[in-house]
């Protein structure tokens, strides 16, 4: 009797634990497996390429890290002002219909597969606008991909500001620019910065769009202008993984994957840390 009573009491809890377990276990197993495969492959030789020969290994990985960071930073620099502008317009001037339209559009843009953005970038920026396979074309396409994320995050940051604070500022005669600079900016920047870091992590994790628009397999280590192509960690992994028969090359691919995960985690965890500080500040 006691057993059945206990079972009834905890059945919902048990069921929820059972069905939520894969959500925790599978990513953890993946992460551990990647680190287990990748960490041994990471050493000065594979990073610098000194004394290493083989498919795609001669130049190490510094060039790819640099290329990934350049694309990520460029995309964020391009997307951030547009995202901020749209979020402010949304809050200050857009009527209900415009707000609904913008919201639908943002969710629509967010659901477009990245490969489609890549295809669009290839035809429009690379061919039609003659930008060629270049850092700039990649930055623009990545900026388009992360834009909805940044706008939605900025909207979330502004929504978190109390109506009373905005109304009080208005009642004191502050105009739109003063309201933005003196009230909204100091209150919203931690959340906005968090979104920016998440945008950086997202830009770092995209491969398909830059495969079409910005990257080459080799021949460029340190691009001298934004009109040159780059090599990146993401595409490097893609190319190396195609050499599945060569165990050494595949192990380097795991090393590159570990590096990429480390970079993405760096930005994601910093974002998480900032969010916690902000929440703690708001509560206290």
């Amino acid at each position, binding site marked *: 009797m006691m057993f059945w009573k206990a079972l009834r009491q905890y059945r919902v809890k048990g069921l929820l634990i059972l069905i939520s377990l894969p959500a925790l276990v599978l990513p953890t197993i993946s992460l551990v497996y990647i680190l287990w495969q990748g960490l041994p492959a990471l050493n000065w030789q594979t990073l610098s390429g000194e004394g290493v020969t083989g498919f795609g290994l001669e130049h190490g990985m510094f060039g790819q890290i640099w290329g990934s960071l350049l694309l990520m930073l460029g995309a964020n620099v391009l997307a951030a002002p547009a995202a901020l502008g749209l979020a402010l317009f949304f809050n200050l001037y857009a009527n209900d219909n415009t707000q609904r339209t913008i919201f639908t559009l943002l969710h629509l843009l967010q659901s477009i597969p990245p490969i489609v953005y890549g295809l669009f970038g290839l035809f429009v920026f690379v061919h039609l606008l003659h930008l060629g396979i270049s850092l700039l074309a990649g930055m623009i396409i990545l900026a388009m991909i992360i834009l909805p994320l940044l706008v939605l995050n900025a909207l979330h940051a502004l929504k978190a500001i*109390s109506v*009373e*604070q905005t*109304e*009080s*500022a*208005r*009642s*004191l*005669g*502050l*105009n739109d620019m003063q309201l933005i600079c*003196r*009230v909204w900016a*100091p*209150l919203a920047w931690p959340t906005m910065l968090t979104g920016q870091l998440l945008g950086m992590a997202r830009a770092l994790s995209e491969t398909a769009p830059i495969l079409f628009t910005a990257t080459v397999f080799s021949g460029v280590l340190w691009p001298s202008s934004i009109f040159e192509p780059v090599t990146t960690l993401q595409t490097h992994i893609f190319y190396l993984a195609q050499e599945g028969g060569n165990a050494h090359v595949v192990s380097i691919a795991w090393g590159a994957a570990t590096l990429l995960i480390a970079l993405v985690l760096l930005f994601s965890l910093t974002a998480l840390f900032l969010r916690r500080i902000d929440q703690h500040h708001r509560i206290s």
Partner: protein
Amino acid sequence: MPQQLNRIETVVKPVNTMEVEASRLCIDHLSLQLEGRAILSKLSTTLPATGIIALIGPSGAGKSTLLRCLNRLYEQWQGDITWAGQSIRNRDTDLLRRQIGLIGQKPAVFPCSIRDNVIFGLSRQQRRAIADEEIYKALQQAALWQEVEHRLGEPAEHLSVGQQQRLCLARALILKPDMLMLDEPTSALDPRSRDIIERSMMELGRSMPLLWVSHDLDQARRISNHILFMCDGKLIEQSDTESFFNQPKRIESREFMRWSVCDC
């Protein structure tokens, strides 16, 4: 600078005679619809030039909305509102809001020091040139000086809710408004803070009109010189406080005083 606030030792008695003729705020057939619903319906009145005007009525009567129309936080109204003979539509919005201050129900302080909060509404040049005497005067008028005298550099969030509400008041007063609107400013406060604000407002009411939204009929009777009773977006009755409470003209007013509800 004087180191101590001259406290208001006695409760200031409301001024009973009010010069309606000298009024500067006139509302003429004010109507407002929000999302297809009539919030204010052809509301007309003329506010006295000084004293506390209590705006009372049941929840949803449109009292707070009326305040937001008067300083143009809502713009989509019909009819006319004139301030010193000129339609407020033709006035500079930011300037109008400085002249007609609004204090909300919940105090909203900004993430900066107490001192910076007081001078928040001033322009950059004014903030640079502001004399400590001005800050002292505003805090004194808001009956907050004694409590913050030695902590002006502290974050305003550290103040209690009652102190924050008085800080909001000081922030509005430093702009030297011609009129103040208060939307249930004491509803979230403890009795002591409520009494302090009431006394300082009654003092202020001697020199400017204060439009005070209140759900508390006792408070309205205690502090106001004039009553505006609203229900369902309409102005039901307007009279001086004594007449309203002793001899209400409308049955709705009597019902409201008895049951705190209105059947209009």
